[in-house]
């Protein structure tokens, strides 16, 4: 009991779930835990899990903030596609300053986020529809830029965003970690996190308190757009090309899933970026495990859904209560129906 309480209890179950999924590989494919140093970088399946989860992690960081304000951003997948298209086309143009191209990519994210945020906070349109518009149209825009083709490029400097390594780790991992730390500092070392949470919990009361709720809502969409743009550049760099149709397709759902596995409520309010990252790792570890296991791919979705439900149930205090009650028999639900329905 003691040791459990020493550790922030919210972290316990997600971490246990992650560990269980990783440990499954011990049985399925022992190579999974093999790590080696090759060409100046760490190499192995565990590194792959981190590397492959980078885009989703970036989206999930932005998504956490958006969800905390009670919103949702479905457009991030499309933003990935647009960013990729813009960068790939610029790389094939006469511009050869990488930093300029990266800036252009980030600019795309900011514009997309600003549009979403504007629709939500200034036009009062429901987030899911406001961002659905860009989700649909955005891929069209990306295809328009790419003229329907996959635009490839040969630029080792830009490609290194996706395939290079920094400090012996794949660069996407390092970039994501950097952005995570930045975001965490931004929300927790300032009062931004508090304001975001307050705006999500009770926007009316928050605005009566003098919190600029609209501006905050607007800015979280911008941040989400920015994160998506970085993810878009990583994905583009990774395959040396911009695939307007498939880059980041349905990735928004994974990002939302990660945020919820991290314990956040889609109704807004409390959020935790570290927990969200654990959620992302759970999803990616699951995907990598499925690929490594050699199971017929037609079972992929079935397995994925069962794992999700299991993790959710594990996190549910009620199930734990029931299990405890099953063993202790004389158990009564600690919190009643009403209390829980408030949350």
């Amino acid at each position, binding site marked *: 009991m003691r040791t459990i309480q020493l550790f922030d209890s919210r972290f316990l179950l997600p971490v246990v779930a992650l560990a269980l999924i990783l440990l499954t590989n011990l049985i399925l*494919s022992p*190579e*999974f835990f*093999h790590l080696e140093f*090759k*060409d100046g970088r760490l*190499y*192995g*399946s565990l590194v*792959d899990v981190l590397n*492959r989860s980078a885009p989703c992690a970036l989206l999930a960081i932005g998504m956490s903030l958006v969800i905390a304000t009670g919103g949702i951003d479905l457009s991030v997948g499309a933003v990935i596609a647009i960013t990729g298209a813009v960068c790939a086309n610029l790389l094939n143009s006469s511009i050869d300053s990488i930093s300029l191209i990266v800036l252009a990519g980030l600019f795309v994210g900011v514009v997309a986020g600003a549009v979403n945020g504007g629709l939500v906070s200034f036009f009062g349109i429901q987030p899911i529809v406001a961002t659905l518009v860009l989700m649909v149209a955005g891929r069209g825009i990306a*295809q328009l830029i790419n003229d*329907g*083709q*996959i635009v*490839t490029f040969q630029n080792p400097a830009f490609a290194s965003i996706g*395939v290079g390594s920094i400090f012996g780790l794949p660069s996407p991992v390092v970039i994501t970690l950097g952005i995570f730390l930045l975001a965490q500092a931004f929300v927790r070392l300032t009062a931004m996190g508090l304001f975001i949470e307050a705006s999500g919990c009770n926007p009316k009361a928050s605005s009566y308190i003098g919190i600029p709720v609209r501006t905050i809502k607007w800015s979280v969409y911008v941040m989400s757009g920015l994160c998506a743009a970085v993810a878009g550049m990583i*994905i583009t760099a*990774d*395959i*040396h*090309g911009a*695939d307007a*149709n*498939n*880059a980041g*397709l349905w990735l928004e759902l994974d990002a939302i899933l990660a945020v919820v596995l991290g314990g956040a409520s889609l109704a807004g309010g409390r959020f935790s970026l570290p927990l969200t990252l654990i959620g992302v790792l759970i999803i990616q570890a699951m995907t*990598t495990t499925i*690929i*490594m296991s*050699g199971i*017929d*791919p*037609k079972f*992929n*979705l079935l397995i994925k859904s069962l794992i999700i439900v299991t993790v959710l149930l594990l996190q549910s205090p009620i199930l734990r209560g029931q299990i405890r009650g099953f063993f202790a028999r004389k158990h009564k639900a600690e919190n009643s129906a009403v209390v829980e329905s408030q949350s």
Partner: protein
Amino acid sequence: GESGKQADHDHGNQGKKALVIGFSQVGSESSWRTSFSESVKAEAARRGIDLKFSDAQQKQENQIKAIRSFIAQGVDAIVVAPVVETGWKPVLVEAKRAGIPVVIVDRNMALDDDSLFLTRIASDFVEEGRKAARWLMEATGGTCNIVELQGTVGATAAIDRMAGFKEVISAYPDAKIIRSQTGEFTRSKGKEVMEAFLKAEQGGKNICAVWAHNDEMALGAVLAIKEAGLNPGKDILIVSVDAVPDIFKAMADGDTNATVELSPHMGGPAFDAIEAYLSGKRDIPKLITVDGGVYTQETAAEEYAKRKK
């Protein structure tokens, strides 16, 4: 009144008025698909046909809606590139009732009634799988540990290519598919899956060849193999389907070994058949195949020069 107009339509006069043809395309999910759409549009423009293009975004219901809307608009003929093989009978019956000829291009439709369509300009996914397998068996002498990058689970192209490939290699006892996962027809998924395969198969030492259901996944696999420090095209052979321009470049660079062509130029024969029918010809064959060959590294450079825009 549209249906009335259709009934009065004088097929003999089509030279005076531009033909209106509705084309229902699956979507734009790959660059092959886009080249296909572009080729049909270019062909229509060349012939002065008024082409009504409709993108179904990979959804059959959208295609059916589009066809029904073509019927409502009273087009002269309809060309469909179906997203799946099944489920077309009700809407084709409607087209037939309205007297509008339908040409099926690319994938097949499962129909028991030949009169529902004018002709089929077919690509044969099973045959593509066979061709890829035959090439690979020849190149390796029938001894090979193959990893397979499948297309989207449930997609006809994936199922049929897999079946055709398996059919051929089943005759070679020393050739077997050791791993198979879906790369969802995309470059990045192809790369991700290949990365995992390489790790699961002793850093790739176990793998003799990659068989990818389309070029995109093959290109993704090339990146993964290179990053693992191996030499794609030599240490691990790569064969795929589609013949998009990028794969020729990869072949020319020695990164992949072979691709089975799936010709995107199906517009010409389709319009030929329609024009022939509308001018009164009735003995149009029910199946017109546009055959694609297997391309290898030898001709890759010159093909690339021909195909890149």
